[in-house]
């Protein structure tokens, strides 16, 4: 059996698919580690992030008072006319949590209306829409598969 036959025998088995791909990823990561000295962190970040351990909204705290304007950086400010408004809008319940505990930030993702992030809604709104669309698609598939054996 020639070497070509041997290689194609490995490649044509779909159970090896993830293994072959992992080899590819490992190869790229080795290149990445080898070129690590050439890569440096850029201090001048467009979306700066500082974690304030004292804030109850940590790590989601973008600064600014609710209903007031805050300093927010954007790549193209001319496209976001309401830049900086509604930096952190909290529902009354979330406001209550943030006044009384230090852990509102850890629960924000788990209850609705916790925080409306200005960066997401004004400057990167399209991302928010796609993220939720991906979730919806996943739910639609799961729902269809769950109910497909039901009789009408």
């Amino acid at each position: 059996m020639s070497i070509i036959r041997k290689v194609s025998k490995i490649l044509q088995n779909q159970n090896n698919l993830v293994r072959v791909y992992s080899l590819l990823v490992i190869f790229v990561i080795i290149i990445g580690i080898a070129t690590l000295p050439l890569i440096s962190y850029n201090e001048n970040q467009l979306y700066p992030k500082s974690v304030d351990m004292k804030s109850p909204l940590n790590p989601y705290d973008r600064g600014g008072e609710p209903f007031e304007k805050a300093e927010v950086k954007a790549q193209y400010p001319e496209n976001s006319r309401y830049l900086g408004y509604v930096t952190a809008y909290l529902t009354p319940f979330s406001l209550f949590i943030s006044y009384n505990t230090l852990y509102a930030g850890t629960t924000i993702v788990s209850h609705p209306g916790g925080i409306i992030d200005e960066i997401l809604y004004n400057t990167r709104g399209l991302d928010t829409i796609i993220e939720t669309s991906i979730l919806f698609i996943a739910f639609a598939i799961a729902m269809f598969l769950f109910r497909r054996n039901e009789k009408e």
Partner: protein
Amino acid sequence: MYELENINIEGQVVTFIPFGDIVGYLTPYTAILFIFAAVFTIIALISKPEKQVDIAFGGDAYYTKNVSVKQMRFQRFMAAACGLATMGGVLSGDVFNFTLFTAMVGITNIGIVASIKNRHILDNAYEYGILAMVGTLPLFAGAAIIVATTGTLSMWILFTPLVTVPLVAKLLLVIGVLAEGMAPVYVAKAEITRAPGAPFILMVHVSSLVLFLRVIEIVISM
């Protein structure tokens, strides 16, 4: 207002669409991809699935497989979502936005074949789905390394010669799209092609190949 600095690769910007910080654009190259994806999405929406002919072995008989209306509706919905995600990925002018659209294509591709009751196809769809999930790691890692080393995600800035994007980030992006769309060896995807519902199955290929074309353009330009 927005201009690509290097027009040697794909020509001048024809039009742009600003969504806040995400400014999508079309050049002659991406416009062709966009039109192609749009045409095939429309075909998937308006055409009925084919009836696959199968031969019963051991005799002269053959029979046709019919796609049920319920299954066709779901496949059509997924094909439309897949087409929209593809068009979004082609239009996008932001690296993170592009990776999100790519991840969405990976999920809808599984959705298109998920409704088929055929063990062989589902086995392969499972392997392919695992790969699509594994592929999100290099995909988003690539975008993360780009934002860490350059401080921005906008392609308008990244395509200028002043900004250097590390090689590893480019490679990670490419192999991420490979896994979401076409897989290194394509074997599972080739078996998925056996599923009935040709106009919808075709969207699996349209989305992955068009996004591969787009990522090549992004990587060369960066």
